[in-house]
């Protein structure tokens, strides 16, 4: 069979339905969140070391950063 378009190859366009402004008093642009909040609403794109399980790696990150909840997005198959 032939190659199909992967989700990351899909181009989307933004269409405006109505115009409005956002009030700077509320919320933050994601990249302007204060550091603590930035971590709390953050994701680490980690290069997983071979050996430990995804679960173990997540537990290490949790300990390093002294956080309460750390998870991972999909187990990497062990060889």
């Amino acid at each position, binding site marked *: *069979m032939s190659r199909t378009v992967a*989700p990351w190859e899909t181009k989307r366009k933004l269409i405006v339905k109505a115009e409005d402004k956002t009030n700077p008093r509320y919320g933050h642009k994601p*990249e302007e969140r204060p550091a603590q909040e930035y971590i709390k*609403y953050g*994701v680490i*794109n*980690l290069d997983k070391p071979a050996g430990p399980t995804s679960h173990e790696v997540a537990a290490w990150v949790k300990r390093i950063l002294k956080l309460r909840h750390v*998870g991972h997005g*999909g187990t990497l198959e062990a060889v």
Partner: protein
Amino acid sequence: MTGVLPITLEESRKIVQALLLSGKEYVCVMKLHGEMEEEKVRKVLEEFQGAIYQRPPLRASVKRKLRTRKIYYTEFLEMEGRNVLFKVGCEGGTYIRKLCFDMGEVLGCGAHMQELRRTRAGPFVEEDTVTLHEVAYYFMQYQERKDGELVKKFVQPMEKALALLPKIYIRDSAVDAVCHGANLTAPGVLSLETGISKGAMVAIFTLKGEAVALAEAAASTQEILNMGHGVVAETRRVLMPRGTYPRCWKSGEI
């Protein structure tokens, strides 16, 4: 190193489901159990593009029933003796070990997965990964110097994880209602991306680019554009804390 593993911190754990469903890309070494011409290997790799059937392996964390998975592409890279190096882009939940085994069956000589490295998980790519050492190092530096910029060296906003989902941008006045679990209705919509289909997952964003919630679209992009009232997306997972934006909705029964 075995490649891209997105780690969700605290509140961002709520977006894990979006990551699990997202597509993956791997570079894999497949070991053939016999001599094989390169031409045949290339051909079988090509044949495994499209929808394939897979029964999860014995050691699997899901029910072992036959299911279909989409292989977006396979790409032959190199072959040395019985080792075949190839790239594969596939739907989340595809077992590459199984894929290698099945390709070995079709080739006739048998094969197994020798090595695997994930080069992409949804929007996260290999080039942008950090190591555990870097995480520990930058975090220590951040604690010493209290410089918030250092955090950005190893953490990305959870919004990044939603980059491949179609987005709907909403008014400030609609944000808090969604944060309380309300469905998104047409008057709250300011702009939206193409490619939304009914029943598909969408991400609801503020004009500042903050994620508000994950939702299930109740209509397509075109339909939503034409709607003056009614539900456009059903809220499934709220990501923003209540009270971040002012409450602009009338209190009924609470």
